[in-house]
């Protein structure tokens, strides 16, 4: 990674922490997770201590994100141990610290511990307020648990909150989708994330798909996307990325950093990192990961060496998913690969000509129509860049 430039372009550093335990497996989830057993938990916590100890001591860690799995599933004392262990290895507490929780696992004692640790943001996987839809997703919670959990989170007084919602679920009507959005907005979190149900390989839903029990309807998905975006704007949640909406100044900085191709270190099994010129992942297996940690040989898989042209392309591909788009001058400064931008110029101007993007000075952002086809735009960008 280029560090020769001005200090202004030094990347921001984030830490992601993967907690690979879930009470059960949701039908749509492809993330690495296991059922929690005490022995595994202890081994996990011990290996995490080792991994945290590897964090750089000379860099400020800007944001922290605990995902999973279900981090909120850990008992209060385990959460405390994990949190202290992390803090002990950081130069200073992070400015943003998010933890994902399932509604059924939200308990007062856990929230109190998290509050004391300095967690700033609770993200809760609501998915839907309709019991039949929750059931079809294989979620364990019931709508009333969502309300109880939400009351507890609010009472604990975290500055930022997020609810995850899911749409285009089989048998979900557009009216149900609207009702879910309105209900989520009524609860008043600072942030909402909405996800189109996707059929990831190795999930129960994917199996149903391949058996023909459910089907993908692009037109229907498009309707859900557009109606969702429209309604969220009406309700005061501004879209800042394809799936993310926030009240003013409530965007998730951790995610923004990754989309801007900054640096992040992932800890825990299956966690991905982009750090010091390399992308890599820890093994998606608790035992393999823990063994490596115990032996003092942190295992890296899926390694990709990065250069300025890869990072520049990705800063565009992922940056354009954000409503703010990209500042070409800025990313050119961060990732100096002059040929790449020149190669992309005809495509970028065509995107603007065809109404898929807007340009203003060195800035480029996708229009509503462009954002709906951002995958195609992403692959065109990669396609245009000569190997």
């Amino acid at each position, binding site marked *: 990674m280029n560090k020769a430039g001005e200090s202004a372009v030094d990347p921001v550093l984030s830490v992601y922490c993967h907690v690979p335990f879930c009470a059960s497996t949701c039908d749509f989830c492809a993330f690495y997770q296991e059922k929690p057993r005490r022995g595994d938990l202890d081994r996990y916590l011990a290996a995490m201590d080792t991994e945290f100890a590897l964090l750089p001591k000379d860099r400020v860690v800007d944001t922290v994100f605990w995902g999973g799995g279900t981090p909120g599933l850990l008992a209060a004392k385990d959460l405390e141990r994990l949190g202290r262990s992390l803090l002990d290895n950081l130069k200073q507490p992070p400015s943003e610290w998010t933890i994902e929780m399932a509604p059924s696992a939200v308990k007062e004692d856990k929230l109190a511990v998290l509050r004391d640790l300095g967690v700033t943001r609770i993200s809760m996987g609501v998915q839907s307020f309709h019991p039949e839809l929750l059931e079809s997703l294989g979620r364990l919670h019931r709508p009333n648990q969502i309300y109880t959990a939400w009351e507890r989170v609010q009472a604990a007084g975290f500055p930022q909150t997020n609810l995850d919602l899911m749409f285009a679920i089989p048998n979900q009507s557009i009216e149900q989708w609207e009702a879910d959005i309105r209900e989520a907005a009524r609860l008043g979190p600072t942030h909402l994330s909405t996800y189109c149900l996707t059929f990831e390989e190795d999930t129960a839903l994917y199996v149903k798909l391949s058996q023909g029990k459910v089907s993908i309807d692009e037109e229907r*998905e*498009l309707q859900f996307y557009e109606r969702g975006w429209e309604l969220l704007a009406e309700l005061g949640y501004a879209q800042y990325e*394809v*799936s993310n909406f926030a009240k003013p100044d409530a965007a998730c900085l951790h995610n923004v950093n990754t989309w801007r191709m900054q640096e992040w270190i*992932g800890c825990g099994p299956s966690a991905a990192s982009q750090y010091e010129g390399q992308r890599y992942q820890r093994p998606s297996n608790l035992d393999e990961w823990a063994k490596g940690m115990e032996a003092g040989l942190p295992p890296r898989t899926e390694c990709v060496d990065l250069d300025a042209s890869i990072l520049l392309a990705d800063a565009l591909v*992922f940056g354009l998913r954000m409503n703010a788009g990209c500042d070409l001058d800025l990313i050119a400064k961060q990732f100096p690969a002059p040929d790449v931008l020149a190669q992309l110029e005809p495509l970028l101007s065509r995107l603007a000509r*065809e109404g898929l993007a807007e340009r203003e000075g060195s800035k480029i952002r996708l229009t509503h129509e462009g954002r709906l*086809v951002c995958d195609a735009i992403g692959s065109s960008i990669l396609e245009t860049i000569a190997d």
Partner: protein
Amino acid sequence: MTDLSHIRNFCIIAHVDHGKTTLSDRILELTRTVEMRDMKEQLLDSMDLERERGITIKSHPVSMVYRARNGEDYLFNLIDTPGHVDFSYEVSRSLAACEGAMLLIDAAQGIEAQTVANAHLATEQGLEIVPVINKVDLPSADVPAIMVQLEDVLAIPADEAVLTSGKTGIGIEDLLEAAVARVPSPRWADVEGLRVLIFDCIYDAYKGVICYVRVFSGSVKMGDQIMTMGDERKMQVKEVGRFSPAMTKQDSLNPGDVGYIVTNLRDVADLKLGDTITHSANPTKEMLPGYKEVSPMVFSGIYPIDTSDYNKLKSSMGKLRLNDAAFVYQSENSVALGFGFRCGFLGLLHMEIIQERIRREYDLDVISTYPSVVYLVTKTDGEKLEVHNPVHLPDPSVIEFIEEPMILASIHIPSTSIGDVLALVSEKRGVCEHTETIDGQRVMLVCNLPLNEILIDFNDRLKSITHGYGSMDYEMNGYQKAKLCRLDIMVNAEPVDAFSSIVHLDKAEGRGRALCKRLKEILPKQMFKIAIQAGIGSNIVARETISAYRKDVTAKCYGGDISRKRKLLEKQKEGKKRMKNIGSVSIPQDAFIKILKTSDGGSN
């Protein structure tokens, strides 16, 4: 050496499917040329493709001995010939090797277009015709009606007909007796010097080029220095022999013999079918009659679907040509399809067979462009061009006129479908010159048609109009001026060369519209909208627009997803690489295939 009076050289000619090859099988059995245990169906058709399609592609001579009812042994040389019009020159050369022809007529189907065409060919060659009514065992056989047709259409006395069934073996011996009694013994045996007719040749990887020959006069043996009289190519005889039915070495080939000569040549293209072989040192004075050069009539581009197969395709074409000098090819480059070959064929069936053999014998996936004929273009400056690829047609402003090849088609149909067939002929820009009644149920139309118009679906439509009872044969009928133009298909204003075609001006718009519509159905939606146009020169005659697709987005994309997401996008990019990029539109290979396979080429 057999006495000339005890040699009979004959062939069996027939319309396709009238039972020619099955009848040959029975003759081989009866003369014990092939032991029963070695017998298999269609013995003489050695190629899989021949067995499967029930057609004969190459000539298959076989020598056999028949003990006649008079107690004497006769040497029979039977030449099984390809029956299809594409190979009519080959047929005529095979016929030229004989003195007699068994004209086979299906007892249920009656006289068909190729029956007549083949009978005429045989008469032209001065052959004695023995009419054979075959499949007499069929419940639908109507022998008396066929006899009437024989007299009325072919002017052959009905009482000459031999009645047979290749299936049950009825009448086979009568047929062989007829050969003894009615086929003349070998002609022209007393001309001075060696005269040998080449009626086919094949390439053998071990032996080299092997000529299938009929000796008229003189004698040829291993070691002889020989030459062709047409283009004076000299060669050495490495081996001679007969087909019994496998190649069997002999000391010499003598007057009246049908057999083979192994030469020291390596390329069948060095020899021309119909040429006369003689001794180099003391050549005979006159060539055998009827020799002419054959030139391809139909052209089409053949491209590998996987561009990396180009060299494999090249070598397989080379191998096919080793055995088929009538097939020509040269490399060509298409913007849309990449590197491939422009190929020339004798006709449509020949083209289909070559394409099928490339797919099957060489396991290659290929895509073929629209077949085209050879146009004669006269430019305003007086220069004349032969154009067999639409892309090479000069700009309309410099064309004085274009001539297209015509055919004279004889179309045999049930009388009831005459109206529909005449409508088809006129739709295809043809003119019916005269009609002839075959019998109460059938008529024959003689029509002058542009060859181009029968290339794609004429035969299929004729069959469907006549419920399978129509048949057609044709011969080339010179060139004729026509109002022709090149129709281009453009994607975002960029022409797609593979879709260009030369069409009649009156049909250009309809065809352009149909092609644009079909492309709109086939091309996948893309990120940008796509304009499809059909045009003649700068004049747009049809257009369609494919709107851009509206959704292609993944919802979830975070730090941990970036590697995965990038891989996915890379994969999509790889997929697009296999597409052809025209007018900044990625056109998948199968869109080309679908369009080019649209049987009617998009016209209605």
